[in-house]
């Protein structure tokens, strides 16, 4: 079934509408992309899905629980990587991971160590375990941030622009990790404003001004818009959405 399902989800900040009639469904085990320009509502959607924001209206169900009511049941099963790194600069790499592992309830020292080792290996930071986070390079921080979102073995990963400022080589390794996680049954929702990342997603939603323009695989969306590439598809769909009566 669906891991995330929304129906007419809307969110307003004062008079500004960040999400409006936002409908999408994410399938289990897929990598789902949220593609759209800055300010289109990607972060607002992710923050609603991790239970940080309340919807103004509409429904959202995550892992079978409606939010915000089912937040307590859902939260331990979600891994969230915020846009800001969200790392403790004065802790070592291992201490950062250990802290988030404890917070998410891993009380056995041996299991915690195993999880930390696994996350370190995945992030390619196995040899930097005792480095302080503040001494890491930008790319390493990004990887540590991802590892912190993974350390409690979540079923659903919500990653807010995880590849911003990441060099192409590292970006490729990120996507390889995502694939490996998908094979383990982990569902991944990843937001991006870079069109060429879309090809790597199983399916994606094109988002503009808080609305979902289209949902589907890249070929499906291209076909629907009748264009040769995704960028033209985005522009064509955006144009018809703007032209259509509200």
């Amino acid at each position: 079934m669906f891991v995330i399902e929304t129906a007419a989800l809307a969110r307003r900040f004062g008079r500004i509408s960040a999400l409006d009639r936002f409908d999408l469904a994410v399938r289990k085990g897929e990598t789902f992309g949220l593609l759209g320009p800055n300010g289109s509502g990607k972060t607002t959607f992710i923050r609603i899905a991790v239970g940080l924001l309340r919807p103004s209206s509409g429904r959202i169900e995550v892992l079978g629980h409606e939010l915000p009511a089912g937040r307590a049941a859902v939260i331990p099963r979600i891994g969230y990587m915020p846009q800001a790194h969200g790392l403790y600069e004065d802790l070592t790499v291992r201490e950062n991971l250990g802290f988030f592992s404890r917070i998410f309830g891993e009380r056995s020292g041996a299991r915690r160590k195993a999880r930390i080792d696994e996350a370190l290996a995945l992030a390619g930071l196995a040899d930097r375990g005792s480095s302080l986070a503040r001494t890491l390079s930008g790319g390493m921080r990004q990887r540590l941030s991802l590892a912190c979102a993974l350390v409690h073995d979540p079923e659903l990963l919500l990653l807010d622009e995880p590849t911003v400022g990441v060099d192409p080589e590292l970006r490729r390794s990120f996507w390889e990790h995502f694939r490996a996680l998908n094979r383990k049954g982990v569902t991944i929702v990843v937001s991006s404003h870079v069109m060429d990342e879309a090809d790597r997603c199983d399916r994606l939603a094109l988002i503009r001004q808080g609305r979902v323009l289209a949902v589907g695989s890249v070929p499906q969306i291209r076909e629907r818009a009748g264009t040769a590439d995704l960028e033209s598809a985005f522009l064509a769909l955006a144009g018809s959405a703007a032209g259509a009566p509200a």
Partner: protein
Amino acid sequence: MRLHRILALALRILAQFIHDTRTLGLMLVVPVLVMALIGYVFRAQEDGKIAVAVVNEDTPSGGRGRLSQVIVDGLAESEKASVTSLSRAEAQASVQSGASDVALVFGSSFTDQLWKNRRTALTIIVEGSNPAQAGAALGTVSGLVMENFPNLLKNMMPKPLSFLFANGLPLQLEIERLHGNASFTTVDFFAPLSIAFLSFFLVFLLTSVSFLRERTHGTMERLAASPVSRLEIVLGYLLGFGLFSLLQVAILVLFTLYVLKVQIIGSVFAVLLVTGLVVLGAVNLGIFLSAFARNELQAIQFIPIVIIPQFLLSGLFWPLADMPGWLQVVARAMPLTWANEALVDIMVRGRGLLQAWAGLAALAGFAVIAGALATWSIRREVA
């Protein structure tokens, strides 16, 4: 609420301290340095003798002896004063330059007036630009003059009657201290609040900055999307900073007692308890106020609002009872006022925890209210 999550937060805070050696130094070394300064400055002020310039223009008529000499001799014998005889002009210059703290001028008719009118005048000159210094010097000198007055009267008796006062005047002045003792010094009075004040100040500053970082570095966002609750966050901070402050206060108290040799009459445990309550309030206040700062500089801007008024109004410099009514109300709303009262009760008056209950209750109340505000300030739309 889960204990292991609170412990995880507390352990994290301690680990952060260990990795941030500069902050560690600030928290453990700076209070001791400041305390040492307070101690030595006040000690130096009190240990010094008062330099008294004596101008004796006393010229009795009729071949009588100078009665003024009785006082001058008395001063010269005292341990608290060093006496130099100067002319009036020299004495003024000496006081002006600071070589003498105070000048005593006996006018030419000092003895005559005393014989004739049974009263006479004595002029005391002080520099006066520092009222505290002038006050201290005046107090000491007037005290010494008064001490020597009985001798002066004895000298005025006809010889055959002087045996009446062979053992001094029938009126004997005995000073009884309700608290403290003759060796009690200003440091002993200043030390209790200094301990509480230093801990409050440093812990408040550190909590507000580290919590602000939590908000600005995105880690708060992560915590908010984790099973940890707002109350658990506040309790974790309290535990982490509380444990750390205990170490800080213990070092500070030991230094104050054994190096500065400040006297404390009550129990050390009670002092730690009061300071502990002060620290808990400081942590909560730091978390709460960090919500109103957008960056570290803005967090620093709380110092003049939060710290300085408490310093001035705590009753250390200005007795609470002498403040205008509305200012007393303000002072009563501040934790350090209560901490000062409780610590003076314990350290100077030797009272027990039960007798200092009002201060303890007020401090605990402040910590709870600030804790509620702190919990509330950790905003998360979805609780």
